[in-house]
């Protein structure tokens, strides 16, 4: 078995052209993660630029309303650029700089990761090119302009289904044509090794902080940690430091779209099977011949036909549980959190809120739940309005 395995999952299923670069990246990361200067610089960026640590907020009204476990929100939405994506991007951009790279490329779905990457590139004075499905550039025109404001060049991807998976394909093709000065800043805990490990490590700051914060506030560990899962980076970050704590339930919320029994879904664990795609062995939505299936979710950030390999492993071993949440449930939760707590969260994060609404009431009042608010919802307001039949344009 090759490097970068989580049980049977993970690996490095990429063209030979990229292999030396992946090995170089792995070696560089192994060196810098132990390098004092690197760690201090990243720490400073987290504190001074991204605004970390993010708050662990006690959602008192929501707790009272649901009538069970105490609910805490980990506020990744308050980070600079509005989501958890910045944690990984600052880490990878700093690593790229240390490696002598001058150009960052990345895929993006809704645009959050693209905006974060463009932001880091601007900060470090690097060139930046973002690949985004043509459909998504239309749905998220504001984010396209935002990336351009930050100095990035945005390429609409016209191949395949013109969405996130095609953007990943195109970024991989671009990287294979130019590796010397370029790092592919992968946006989730997916792709070939070492990306699932690197992205997890940079995102694990979420659970590192949350664990200390909950112990300080409650004097004990949470009964459950809940997060939404597409590729799975915010969930992996939120879970990581709780994995050794066997009393803490880890729950990932997948985008079920119109429902797991419909063709319009992106719930990989619920509807997918094991396969090899985008450089990794994991679960994927696919047909009987291994052709990758078109997926659907109201949330562009969860609209991906796979899941990171470490999640596949946590699922198989039973350490984490993955549950489907539909568009309808997510939209209702989006509105609920806005009205109950005055927080407009990302539609992705609303999938996690929806599940908390289902489970909190039946839990003991002494228990607590941490739910990761992976991003803010400004980007989704127009889409939610349209979902409710109000034609608002950004």
């Amino acid at each position, binding site marked *: 078995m090759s490097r970068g395995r989580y049980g049977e999952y993970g690996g490095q299923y990429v063209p030979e052209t990229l*292999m030396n670069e992946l090995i170089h990246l792995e070696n560089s990361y192994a060196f810098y993660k132990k390098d004092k200067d690197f760690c201090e610089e990243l720490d400073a960026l987290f504190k001074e630029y991204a605004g970390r640590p993010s708050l662990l907020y006690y959602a008192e009204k929501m707790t009272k309303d649901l009538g069970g476990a105490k609910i805490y929100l980990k506020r990744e939405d308050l980070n600079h650029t509005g989501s958890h994506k910045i944690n990984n991007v600052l880490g990878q951009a700093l690593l790229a700089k240390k490696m002598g790279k001058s150009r960052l490329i990345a895929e993006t779905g809704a645009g959050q990761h693209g905006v974060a990457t463009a932001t880091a590139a601007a900060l470090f004075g690097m060139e930046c090119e973002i690949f985004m499905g043509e459909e998504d550039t239309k749905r998220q025109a504001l984010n396209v302009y935002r990336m351009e404001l930050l100095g990035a060049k945005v390429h609409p991807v016209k191949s395949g289904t013109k969405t996130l998976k095609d953007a990943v394909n195109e970024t991989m093709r671009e990287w294979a044509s130019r590796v010397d000065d370029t790092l592919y800043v992968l946006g989730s805990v997916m792709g070939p090794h070492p990306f699932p490990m690197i992205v997890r490590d940079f995102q694990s700051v979420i659970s590192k902080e949350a664990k200390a914060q909950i112990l300080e506030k409650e004097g004990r560990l949470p009964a459950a940690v809940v997060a939404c899962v597409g590729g799975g980076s915010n969930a992996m970050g939120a879970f990581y430091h709780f994995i050794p704590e066997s009393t803490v339930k880890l729950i990932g919320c997948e985008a079920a779209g119109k429902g797991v029994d419909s063709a319009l879904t992106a719930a990989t664990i619920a509807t997918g099977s094991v396969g090899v795609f985008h450089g990794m062995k994991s679960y994927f939505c696919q047909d009987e*011949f291994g052709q990758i299936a078109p997926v659907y979710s109201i949330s562009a950030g969860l609209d991906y036909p796979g899941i990171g390999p470490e999640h596949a492993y946590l699922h198989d071993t039973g350490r984490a549980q993955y549950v489907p949440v539909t568009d309808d449930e997510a939209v209702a939760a989006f509105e609920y959190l806005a009205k109950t707590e005055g927080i407009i969260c990302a539609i992705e994060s609303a999938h996690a809120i929806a599940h908390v609404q289902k489970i909190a009431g039946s839990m003991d009042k002494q228990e607590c739940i941490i739910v990761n608010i992976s991003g803010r919802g400004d980007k989704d307001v127009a889409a939610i309005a349209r979902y409710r039949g109000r034609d608002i344009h950004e």
Partner: protein
Amino acid sequence: MSRLQEVFGKGKAFVAFLTAGDPTAECTVNYILKMEKAGADLIEIGIPFSDPTAEGAVIQEASLRALRGGMTTEGVFHIVEEVRKRSGVPIALMTYLNPVFHYGYEAFFARCRSLGVDGIIVPDLPFEEKGEAEEVAGRFGVDVISLIAPTSMERIRLIAKEAKGFIYVVSSMGVTGVRSQITTDIAGMVEEIRAVTDTPCAIGFGISTPKQAGEMAHYADGVIVGSAIVRLIEQYGEAAGEEIYRYVSDMKAAIA
């Protein structure tokens, strides 16, 4: 010596690629026979995949056309079956790992052996990962072809030592597709390979003109042409037979 190696034992070999089911299964069978008649020494049949990440626009589009037309892994085996009724031309399959993984390694390679498919090219299966498929393929006498890229450097010897059938020398960075110029130090790469193995080398990626083919054949035991043929199929559709025949004849003549 494997059957694939023998392909390269009779002078410079011309390896011709097309995507199965583009535009139809019947056309693919006919085009394969035309290419053989025109002098192609090995036919590389692409099993279309929804997300061909090592492919340029021409083969991406062909894959999507084939899938839209209903082509499946099973359908590709039927095409080979039809070809085998009329020809013993050496055949290798090209696809991504997922369709093979999903079909099941045992079932897939058993099918290959029964149809006289001698090799498989899987661009997303690098040296480190090839073990799981190669173990099964080997039992059925199917060679998993190794690729060596311009970035392989010190990996060249590692890969070449274990290579079976022939070595696919990737001429250029990036993805498949027609290129006006190939700037990689091919001679240097082949020299590195030759230092550790006698396994034949075929150069692919970017070759489209007889002139390029002639130059590349000079460095190696054969050339592989894909996008240029697929482009003819894209252009002429079900009436591409004569065009393909003429093109392959010219290319074969250029490397002889």
